[in-house]
């Protein structure tokens, strides 16, 4: 279906971000923290993206329509893009 499909695609994205973050963390635990700033940058990118993705998912879920009266799905998506831009600006600054 249309709506459920959209959420499924988002869930797949969230899974991807989760795996990426977990693998980075595993590397840090196993091999070492050098260079630490790069690890932090990548990990925070994963964590931040995951959180923003979850926020988007909550906001565009039709079942939660009652909670978000003033926010259309399009608006939620635009917010998601904007927040991601700022997050990744900082991440790229820090990755070194």
């Amino acid at each position, binding site marked *: 279906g249309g709506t459920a499909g959209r959420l499924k695609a988002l869930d797949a994205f969230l*899974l*991807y971000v989760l795996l*990426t973050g977990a*693998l*980075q963390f595993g*590397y840090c635990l196993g091999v070492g923290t050098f260079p630490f700033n790069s690890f932090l940058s990548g990990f925070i990118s994963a964590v931040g993206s995951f959180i923003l993705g979850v926020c988007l998912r909550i906001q565009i879920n039709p079942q939660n329509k009652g909670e978000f009266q003033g926010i259309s799905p*399009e608006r939620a998506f635009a917010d998601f893009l904007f927040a991601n*831009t700022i997050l990744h*600006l900082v991440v790229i600054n820090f990755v070194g």
Partner: protein
Amino acid sequence: SAGPRLRLEAALGFLLVLAGAQALVPSHRLAAGDLARLRAVLERPFPDVRAAYHSIVGLSSLGVRVADEKAACKFIKSHVDSSSVESLFYAAQSMQVLSGCEVTISNETRELLLAAVSEDSSVSQIFHAVGALSGFGLPLASQEALSALTARLSKEESVLGTIQALETASYLSQQADLSSIVEEIEDLVARLDDLGGVYLQFEEGIETTALFVAAAYKLSDHVGTEPAIKEDQVIQLMNAIFSKKNFETLSEAFSIARAAGSLSQNRFHLPVVVVPEGPAAVSHHQPVLRLQVTNVMSQLLTQVSVKLDQAKSVSSKATVLQQLPFTLSGDFFELNFMNVKPASGYYDFSISVDGDKRFIANKVELKVKVSTEVGITNVDLSTVDKDQSIAPKTTRVAYPAKAKGSFTADSHQNFALSFQLIDVNSGAELIPHQTFVRLHNQKTGQEVVFVAEPDSKNVYKFELDTSERKTEFDSASGTYTLYLIIGDATLENPILWNVADVVITFPEEDAPSTVQSKNLFVPKPEIQHLFREPEKRPPTVVSNTFTALVLSPLLLLLILWIKIGANISNFSFAPSTIVFHMGHAAMLGLMYVYWTQLNMFQTLKYLAILGGITFLAGNRMLAQKAVKR
């Protein structure tokens, strides 16, 4: 509450009274060397009339005449510029000082000078004009000049201008009411900066301060009123002006010379300087304290009476002498202090100089040292048995002989030394600052120093117990030479006396394996610099593997999206959609370029542009989608 505040005010008041009670004494003056340097600067050949003025008038303030007065007179006459009021001023003042230097002034010049004395000229011009007219002996309307000066002063507020006004007023007739100008002295004093309570000077510098002193006293002498400068302030001014020992410019030297002249010859305040001959110290060989009394220019004042108000011992605070006059012998005032047979030590002398009611700073405090010679008596060296089974063996030694034979100190017996110190001249007991017992190991060069302490009867005792003192000696047994060191600031004969030899034996087990002489001055072992080691990096294989691993979820995502059937069929090719996607892609590309090349400022610039475009396009696109929905 009133109680604590009243107490605070009382305490502050008390402190102020204490501070005031300490009269200020000059710390700087023109000593002979300074005078010579000043004269050297002033006696340089002068290139122009201004320099001539500074040299001639400066030297005359010091009481010195120019070497060749005729040549100076000729020089001024040939170099004066009759069209410049300033040049005429310099010429007039210089010629007044030189003997037999006369000149006739043309009517033109006179008119020029008189015209300059008006409200339209600056204070400086009025000063020069009035000074020139006075110097040439030409008539001058004092009242007019005074009103022009007062009017001008109220417009110009500079310190130098006011100082020049003071000097200008000193050329005017006493019949005119100069009180308004005289009041300026007080205002100027208020503008002086107090530096640490010792110096008082204008922020414009020492030259200005010196010119002020000269002008203030010149005017005060002229009108016959004491200048509104307090005694302490005069001393502070003196300290500031004569603290300069190197005179960079001729005008600075001139100003200091004039200040010196003023302070040594005026009708109201004459600072007095009391200088002891050499260090203020007396002893049996040198019982007389000799002082010189001079003015600020180191000129001797002999028509004065110098009196010792009181002499108090610093240590016991007892007054040993009161109200005794000094006797004049040649250039010096003398007092034989040893007549009262003072004990050795330091004494505070309160001396007053009288003879002229103009004297200031004429009460001085002087710290005088009384030295003596020390004698060592009753020197007993003994070996004391620890078990006290055998009676101690005592040997008496007389300074400066050395005791025959050697003494032992080991586990059974201690070595003891006792002595007394007396003042050879008075027989009184002395407690000097330094009473050391030095033991010097003849073989290793080691030395250990102890302090001998006096007991209640002022008998010095020193005891060497080998078990107590083995750490100081590093348990090095051997023959040690014993020295007695006596010293003090008030002793003329410090003593270093080789008293005896002492064989010290420490228990065997404590003896050091090798006796190392601790030489502090050999080169130390070299330090190799360790550069910061770079952090350990994992092998390239590992990091490459992990890079591939971390990118693999992306593959998974694509597969999942295809499986879910994410439809891109709804993709409309509307312009806003295309622009949005391209803008967004560009923003992602910008992130990559930022990582590799740009800095934050450039990135933000580009991001603003791309972001703006993307936002507008995205807004349109999403709105269209919402409408479709």
